[in-house]
């Protein structure tokens, strides 16, 4: 058994019903040319790295299918003639590269803007990024506590200066900071 996947960029103007029709049409074509669709993923509308047929955006859709004798030439010709498809690419994959389809087409089309498809690797990286700042935050807290421990000793040595600072801070609310500086100088 051979496994293939086809990435298709569908015209960004198509939404909901029309988009589903187009996706189902491609699935039918795969079955017509001797393939069994294993999974379909709609990534949603994404910005293209470069203009394709004068379009800046496109809806990425991934079809994974299997079959012994899939007529890819005819299938690719059909994709070429479809005006709603901006670009496509078919490659052969291994069995372990097949992704499980978690949601139906309708659910993917409805919720594609809310929950974009994120691959496992990217998820792991984002999790690592989330954990790192926490560690840094903890270290900052530790530093703050150290400073807090040190601060009373300094304050004990110079209590008068602190009182002055507090006075200036309270005055800032009522008067301008420039005037408070002048008062300090006086």
């Amino acid at each position, binding site marked *: 058994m051979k496994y293939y996947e086809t990435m298709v*960029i569908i015209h960004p103007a198509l939404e909901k019903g029309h988009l589903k029709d187009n996706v189902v049409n491609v699935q039918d074509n795969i079955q017509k040319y001797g393939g069994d669709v294993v999974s379909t993923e709609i990534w949603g509308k994404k910005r293209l790295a470069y203009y394709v047929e004068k379009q800046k955006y496109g809806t990425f859709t991934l079809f994974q299918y299997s079959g012994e004798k899939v007529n890819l030439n005819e299938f690719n010709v059909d994709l070429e003639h479809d005006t709603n498809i901006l670009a496509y690419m078919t490659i052969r994959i291994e069995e372990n*590269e097949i992704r499980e389809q978690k949601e139906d087409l309708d659910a993917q089309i409805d919720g594609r803007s809310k929950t974009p498809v994120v691959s*496992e690797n990217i998820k792991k990286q984002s999790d690592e990024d989330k954990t790192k700042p926490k560690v840094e935050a903890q270290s900052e807290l530790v530093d703050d506590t150290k400073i807090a421990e040190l601060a009373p000793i300094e304050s004990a040595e110079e209590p008068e200066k602190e009182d002055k600072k507090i006075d200036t801070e309270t005055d800032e609310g009522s008067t301008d900071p420039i005037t408070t500086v002048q008062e300090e100088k006086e």
Partner: protein
Amino acid sequence: MAFINTRKVCTFCENPEMKIDYKEYKILRKFITEQGKIIPGFVTGVCSKHQRQVTRAIKRARNIALLSYSNDLRES
């Protein structure tokens, strides 16, 4: 004089769970320059086996408009 080992370790050899795939275009962005050129393996530290896979993945991603072929820095 102490010898300092500055040789980089391949990120994909370190993390075997990381897949090299054209669909993982966000990871592949680390291996291309701002202009869009593929960075050689001796700069990034990727071993030759994985560099071949990265190159193939980048070329596939370019074909399907996930990555750009070239980016003119003067325009942006």
